[in-house]
């Protein structure tokens, strides 16, 4: 016991010495930006991070890429805590929860760090870098269904995890669009299921949808894992159900095209999304914008962005800039884009 005490004392001594010996923050003047994705092992997030990294480096800023080990807000908070301790200058985060990150992001901002969200928004950030307007995404999804069913018929939604804020926002907006416009009166929305962005679960749900709704015409999957799993399953069993949604060209290249399960699909460029997030952080650090609605700034990429107000009913709680419109991939261009992302 005495030995333990002695050792503890020694430890405390070392701690104090080390604490005293430590200086203040970095003052070398170099900027460091960090991006925190939703989780490791998701190709979309990988591409987004690589865009962020490339854009930062082009501006002479060192970039840190952090993929949390689990798709949870908790894992992200742990990472962001460490980034604050490292005194980075800007953090871009794709939030796993609409509320949970607020405190840690606030303390980042209190420490003078610029914070933007991308992909999915959360309270506590200064601005949301929106890949494409929520309504616009929902609109192309509804129009895909309308087109693929020929104007009327049954369709079902296969989403990611039930907790994904961006997917939930798109699905909610799809409902609004269908209710508002009588053009879509012939569409029958039979089910919304969650494949948890997992292969096995997504395949399971697709199979159940096919079995439960013999008259099903279209499955729309606004998630890169879900659309691939659904399209492959439909192809495997030779069903004539069509699969619409949002997918990565490089993963979907074998199932997109005429006479294939997915005639066409949409997405935005994740690389560009990451780039714009880096530019937005720079704009904050450089004082080009304060993030207030109505402002506009020219990014280091030479594009002018207008800051528009938040849209809380669509899950966007911060002011936002819109990167672009959803882009359509079909048999004609998929090969070419598969090389890009």
């Amino acid at each position, binding site marked *: 016991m005495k030995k333990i005490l002695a050792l503890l004392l020694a430890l405390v001594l070392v701690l104090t010495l080390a604490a005293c010996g430590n200086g203040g923050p970095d003052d070398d003047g170099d900027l460091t930006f960090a991006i925190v994705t939703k989780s490791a092992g998701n190709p979309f997030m*990988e591409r987004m991070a690589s865009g962020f990294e490339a854009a930062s480096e082009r501006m002479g800023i060192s970039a840190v890429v952090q993929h949390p080990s689990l798709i949870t807000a908790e894992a992200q908070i742990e990472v962001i805590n460490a980034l604050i301790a490292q005194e980075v200058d800007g953090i871009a985060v794709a939030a796993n929860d609409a509320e949970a990150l607020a405190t840690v992001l606030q303390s980042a901002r209190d420490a003078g760090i610029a914070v933007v969200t991308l992909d999915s928004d959360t309270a506590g950030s200064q601005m949301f870098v929106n890949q494409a307007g929520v309504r616009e995404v929902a609109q192309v999804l509804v129009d895909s269904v309308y087109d693929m069913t020929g104007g009327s018929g049954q369709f079902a939604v296969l989403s990611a995890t039930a907790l994904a804020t961006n997917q939930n926002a798109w699905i909610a907006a799809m409902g609004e669009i269908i209710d508002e416009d009588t053009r879509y009166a012939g569409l029958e929305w039979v089910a919304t299921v969650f494949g948890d962005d997992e292969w096995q679960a997504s395949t399971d749900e697709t199979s159940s949808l096919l*079995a439960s709704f013999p008259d099903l015409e279209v499955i729309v999957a606004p998630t890169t894992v879900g659309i691939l799993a659904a399209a492959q399953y439909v192809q495997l069993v030779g069903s004539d159900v069509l699969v619409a949604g949002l997918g990565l060209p490089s993963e979907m*290249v074998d199932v997109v095209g005429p006479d294939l399960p997915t005639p066409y699909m949409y997405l935005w460029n994740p690389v560009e999304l990451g780039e714009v997030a880096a530019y937005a952080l720079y704009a904050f650090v450089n004082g080009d914008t304060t993030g207030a609605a109505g402002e506009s700034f020219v990014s280091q990429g030479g594009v002018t962005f207008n800051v528009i107000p938040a849209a809380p009913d669509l899950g966007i709680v911060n002011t936002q800039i819109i990167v672009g419109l959803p882009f359509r991939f079909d048999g004609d261009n998929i090969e070419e884009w598969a090389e890009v992302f």
Partner: protein
Amino acid sequence: MKAHLRKLVSRREFSLLLVLVAVGAIVQWQNPAFLTMGQIDSILRNYSFMIMLATGMLMVLLLGGIDISVGSTLALSGMASALLMRDGIITSGLTAYLFSVAVGAVCGLLVGLVIAKGKVLPIIASLGFMYVFRGMTFFISDNQWVGTRFLVPEYLDFSRGSTLGISNLVWIVLAVYILVFIVLRWTKLGRQIYAVGSNPEAALVSGIRIDRIKLIVYTFNGALAGLAGAMFVGSFASAMNNSAMGMELDIIAACVIGGVSLGGGQGSVPGVLLGGLLIAVLARSLSLMGIDQFWQQALLGSVILLAVISNVIMTRHAARRSLERREI
């Protein structure tokens, strides 16, 4: 004849079969699309990995061990062989399968070595390797997926194809079940596994080389996980680094429902098969019956609890009856 029948009815496997039939009947009643060839084949194929790995876990549990690293081993071996296909080193489907099995066997051997030679408790050893193998999967793949077009077509055709109307994967599972059934029932190794699990000291005294048996069983379990890795990647036509996360829970649950004791020495191949099938059918049944998906986990948890508790009650009942009979 009557005694024979009573013995059959009182067996655990029989009551499990009844439950399975009852669940099947309810689902069928709610949704006639359930009992179709396509639907059954799709359930079997989608859960073939879990159902197959339950046999490996059975042998491990019979020894009184446990292996929670199988999900990670599955992902690692599947990813390793997919990467070699992408890089053009593996060009045939058979090699892909064999390589994946080999990687799995090495993983299993490592786990077995730490358990048998390092004398580390199985749950701890496999917990550590669960982290290590999963981490290595992300590491070797550099966080990327391996997409369909990088995989060997022959490999995909086999993994996704079927023979005589039944998926090839289901045939593989069937073959594994027959193999394990034969080994456990009719070979010396099988008897030794039961002996080690039910009474390690006695087994040691009777000259069984326990360490060697442990190594064999864990290596075999790893090899099965490797096989499942190749099947997984082939079936879903993509290799992802988060594949089969948490699958070990389903596998252990299948064994537990199937009447395998975590204490070792108790459990049968048919029981495990029924346990695995029950989990597979339950997982699919909710969405087929149009019941809210969010009930799924709560239902599975209740089924596990009910299964183990009813098992205890049945065992007690049987013990009491045999005691009564003896008194008479």
